[in-house]
């Protein structure tokens, strides 16, 4: 399409991205106007929000400034479960054009709905995400997010099509075929979960395929699970691609709540659609920019399922410094921890990402690992199983025992816990084709 040729020119102005650069005063005006609308909608049409606002004595008319959002009641994942399936919908089902649902790994699935306008907004924020990460219509993009009830696959798909990139809707799984498609189709960019891509790097290696030499993939958009800076470095060193963080959650819209720009220093939040707050997860009080706490969102344009002060459980901070890219929409720090990933052992809070960074610090590459929690004679035990690779293997029992000790010491430095590290065979820890499973908690099954 001739009218879209501007999209070929890297580094030039993209109309879709204009909203990312809106003057801050204008952005706050838009936010306030939309906040008023969404709070009215939620109050009028969703019993749960109305009851909670009434209980606090807040009426929609009481929202006069953006700071008034702090007076609104919170909502959380359990609210979606308790009102399963449609209890938080604010429009008649005839207006709902799409449903998505969570995998339900942590209990009953949660359902989210979209009106036609919601779908349009979702598509736009994904286009803005792709543009900020440098994707263009000339890219051939392999979308490895699962297609189906999960928001990742179809969400990215719609955005990629709107960008007029060439979409390869590979979905998740069938790793050897993924590599074959990348090679045969000349794929230049990918989307997927970071843990699955780490697995693909391994598969490519086994197939004798070198990412730099044999493939054209230059960039990847990764999300749907927390991933550390160490993992980014590993991905980039091992495959030669540039890895960008796309942030999102189904309850808010799916992927595209925020995305990293060329500077790759934390995702910019599309603030014209998502009002962002950081709160202290204990006191629930709002925290200033720069301070770490729980990320909370209020959707500003959602129709089918507005979210009011939704607690994400993700731990991060709003970055107070402006980004060199010039976007006025603010960034959050990359999310490496979720408060519900956290487990408590011997009274110490531990996040899987801490174990990950400890392992990376020891080996400079990311081994496959699994944290196993058990209970023996009433005492919690934590074991970290680490897969040995040919590169890590040394022909000395002593050297291997040293490696084991270095892992344990590094974990102790990060967590303060002395734990058992077991070296296991390659491939003995199950690989995920979606979100990685890092913790096996068997404490309920063996009291």
């Amino acid at each position, binding site marked *: 399409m001739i009218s879209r040729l501007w999209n070929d020119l890297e580094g030039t102005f993209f109309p879709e991205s204009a909203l990312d650069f809106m003057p801050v005063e204008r952005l706050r005006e838009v936010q306030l106007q939309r906040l008023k609308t969404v709070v009215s909608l939620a109050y009028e049409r969703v019993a749960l929000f109305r009851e909670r606002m009434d209980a606090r004595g807040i009426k929609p008319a009481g929202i006069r400034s953006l700071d008034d959002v702090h007076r609104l009641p919170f909502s959380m994942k359990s609210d979606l479960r308790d009102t399963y399936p449609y209890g938080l919908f604010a429009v008649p089902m005839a207006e709902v054009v799409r449903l998505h649902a969570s995998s339900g790994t942590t209990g009953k699935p949660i359902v989210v709905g979209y009106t036609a306008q919601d779908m349009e907004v979702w598509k736009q924020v994904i286009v803005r995400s792709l543009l900020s990460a440098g994707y263009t219509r000339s890219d051939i993009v392999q979308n490895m997010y699962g297609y189906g009830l999960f928001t990742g696959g179809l969400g990215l798909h719609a955005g990629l099509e709107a960008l007029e990139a060439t979409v390869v809707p590979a979905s998740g799984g069938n790793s050897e075929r993924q590599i074959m498609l990348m090679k045969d189709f000349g794929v230049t960019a990918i989307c997927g979960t970071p843990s699955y891509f780490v697995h693909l790097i391994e598969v490519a290696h086994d197939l004798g395929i070198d990412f730099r030499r044999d493939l054209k993939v230059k960039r990847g958009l990764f999300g749907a699970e927390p991933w550390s800076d160490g993992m980014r470095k590993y991905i980039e060193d091992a495959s030669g691609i540039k890895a960008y963080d796309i942030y999102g959650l189904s309850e808010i819209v799916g992927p595209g709540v925020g995305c990293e720009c060329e500077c790759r220093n934390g995702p910019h939040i599309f603030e014209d659609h998502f009002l962002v707050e950081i709160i202290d997860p204990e006191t629930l009080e709002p925290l200033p920019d720069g301070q770490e706490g729980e990320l909370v969102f209020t959707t500003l344009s959602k129709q089918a399922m507005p979210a009011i002060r939704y607690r994400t459980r993700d731990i991060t901070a709003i970055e107070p410094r402006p980004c060199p890219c010039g976007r006025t929409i603010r960034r959050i720090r990359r999310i490496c921890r979720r408060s519900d990933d956290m487990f408590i052992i011997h009274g110490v809070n531990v996040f899987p990402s801490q174990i990950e960074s400890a392992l990376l610090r020891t080996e400079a590459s990311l081994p496959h690992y699994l944290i196993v929690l058990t209970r023996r004679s009433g005492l919690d035990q934590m074991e970290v199983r680490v897969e*040995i*690779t*040919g590169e*890590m*293997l*040394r*022909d*000395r*029992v002593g050297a*291997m*025992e040293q490696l*084991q000790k270095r892992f344990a010491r590094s974990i102790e430095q990060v967590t303060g816990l002395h734990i058992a590290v*077991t*070296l*296991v*065979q*390659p*491939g*003995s820890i199950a690989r995920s084709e979606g979100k990685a499973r890092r913790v096996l908690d068997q404490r309920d099954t063996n009291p």
Partner: protein
Amino acid sequence: MKIRQISVFLENQHGRLSALCRSLAGAGIDLCALTLSDAGEFGLLRFITAEPDRAKRVVEAAGFAVTSSDVLALCLPNRPGGLSAVLTELEPHGLSVEYMYAYARRTGDAVMITCFDDVDRAMAALEAAGVTLLKPADLSAEGRPSV
């Protein structure tokens, strides 16, 4: 000359050793010598074969972590004092033996597979002392019975 030794990481779990041996057997790989060391939670299997490259690929494909290293195969007379004489020769060189394992050749000689801390210096010292070191090519005839 140096000989390539294959080392395999074995998780201390039932059936791992036999799975490894099955993969070697399936590929028709003949072993000259092997040793299994045990570190409690895991084991390290080391072996010598005439086909180290193929053996490494086979074992890797079977899902094991594998590495290779250079060792020396000292050919010694199979009689009291055979090893002692060689070690005495080496003493002034200050070389360290990391580990050893042995097998008997059909010729009647003994072969000590030896891992030194400094394989190149050890090789030079042994050659200067007139000790016969097996070459990779010597290994192909080691496994099979003579006809």
